[in-house]
């Protein structure tokens, strides 16, 4: 019968029309500025540098090993190693990045830098409202703008942060065990700091 399919289609839209007043399923719009969808925990937007403690320069975990700079596919990270050293979380003197820029307009938030970083120094932020009026300066974030506290990291990625802390604690324990063993083995003469594998202790 001509028109039968059309009538069934009309019934379908009518059900959706009436349903939209009744069930949430039929009205899926989220009024963005007022209502916000909860962000998925694993969401990633642009990287940030983690630092322990209050002072972002002293507590910064990054040791400017430039692995992320090499591995980054669109090559948007630029690091300048510092001349002097500063003690890191485990008390060993490590380099720190005198300059650490990420060109956010080039970065495609693929989080490969997070994956390859051996020092858990760079993580992915979830802030997405980042519009600036300055196309070049505003999007070239320098070291200070990138540095965010470990507490912020715990706030946005709780399970991930907990897992990272376990890794760091394990490494710290291993480092201490090795130094205690080294001290016990090498008689009383104080040994210079053994070049323990890079580790950052937990604040």
């Amino acid at each position, binding site marked *: 019968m*001509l028109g039968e399919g059309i009538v069934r289609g009309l019934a379908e839209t009518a059900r959706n*029309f009436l349903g939209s007043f009744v069930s949430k399923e039929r*009205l899926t719009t989220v009024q963005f500025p007022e209502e916000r969808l909860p962000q998925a925990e694993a969401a990633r937007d642009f990287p940030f540098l983690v630092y322990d403690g209050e002072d972002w320069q002293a507590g910064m975990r990054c040791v400017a090993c430039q692995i992320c700079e090499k591995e980054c596919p669109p090559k948007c990270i630029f690091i300048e190693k510092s001349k002097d050293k500063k003690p890191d979380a485990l008390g060993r003197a490590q380099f720190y990045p005198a300059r650490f820029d990420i060109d956010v307009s080039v970065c495609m938030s693929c989080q490969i830098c997070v994956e390859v970083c051996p020092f858990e120094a760079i993580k992915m932020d979830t802030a997405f409202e980042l519009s600036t009026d300055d196309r070049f300066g505003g999007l070239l974030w320098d070291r200070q703008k990138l540095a965010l506290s470990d507490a912020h990291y715990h706030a946005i990625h709780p399970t991930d942060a907990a897992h990272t802390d376990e890794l760091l604690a394990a490494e710290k324990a291993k480092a201490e065990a090795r130094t205690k063993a080294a001290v016990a083995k090498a008689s009383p003469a104080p040994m210079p700091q053994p070049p323990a594998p890079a580790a950052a202790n937990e604040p």
Partner: protein
Amino acid sequence: MTETIDQIFVILKHWLVGHVPTAVEPIVSELLSVVPIILLFPLLFALITVMERKGLGRIQNRYGPNRVGPCGILQPIADGIKTLTKENIVPHSADKVVHLLAPLLLVMATFLGYAVLPVGRNMVAANMDAGVLFFFAVGSMTELSVFMAGWSSRNKYSLLGAMRAIAQMISYEVPLILSSVTVIMAAGTLSTVSIVEQQSGYTGIFPHWFVFTPWGFAGFVLFMIAATAESNRSPFDLPEGESELIAGYYTEYSGFKFALFFLAEYLGMMSISGMAITLFLGGWAAPLSFLTWIPSYLWFFGKLFFFIAGFIWIRGTLPRLRMDQLMNFAWKFMLPMALINLVTAGVWRFMPTGILRWLVCSAMVVAPYVLLGRGFMLGKRLEKRTYRFAD
């Protein structure tokens, strides 16, 4: 008391005309019946645009405009200001005069159609003896303005769109007029006011509307399908088929002229629904006998509201027909059905009242529908297919 409320506008008009010097009286009384139409229907147009966008939104599980004013009511004002302030670009190679004239002629032709629509008990702008003929005569002027719009923009797409629009309008005007001829034949008059009068009686609580007769219902369905095509609405919105021709004949229009085309489209939609209400749904008559205390004009605009909701509903559901299918449908399905409907109305007129008359007429309407429908479908082997599955 209900009588005065019902006639409130008529009394108001006579009171006003009474205060005017007699020399100018005819002019003023004409003005008083024309000015409300010029004011009211563009206001309804504004309301309908927001109603359409919200209705489509609700069909598509979203809100529709709700930011401008409380739940989007002020959206048409925002659109109006936007179109007024938009720059009015006229393409260099366009034919300036005809380019400007097209929307004006289109809006004028659609406004003229309202003269004969009885909006309420003795509330009609011009009670003409040949009202329906006037309505269709003025309706056929829109094709000329569509051609002027398409041709004067000197743009390949708009010319294609204009040609399609004219071909569609002409081929759907025939079933439109034929399906209204059945009502004219049954009512025996061309005047819209007396057509409404013929439908105003009640048996028991049911009204004598023409739509409750077999030929009336078939005529109503045919009339509405042809009306949708005539006003370029959803399944027949080929002239401005976005996916192929950018925007059909009003591609090269911007600013207020573009808004005029929209005004004309919605006015056309309302006036053709008004005519359908007058011919088939008893104009301003109340649907049930005990409801006659409600003023007559409220019934007319209530029914108009349902027609508009129907147009929006169809627009939200049906995909678009292709040009040749559109033509085949008009000439091979609508026209024969309209002619058969004419014969059914004749048979209805001369058979004695009773159940036999109902059966014969219903058969005369349903049988060709099924046969033509199957022929139409089989002609193209359209059927729901079953699919085989490999291992």
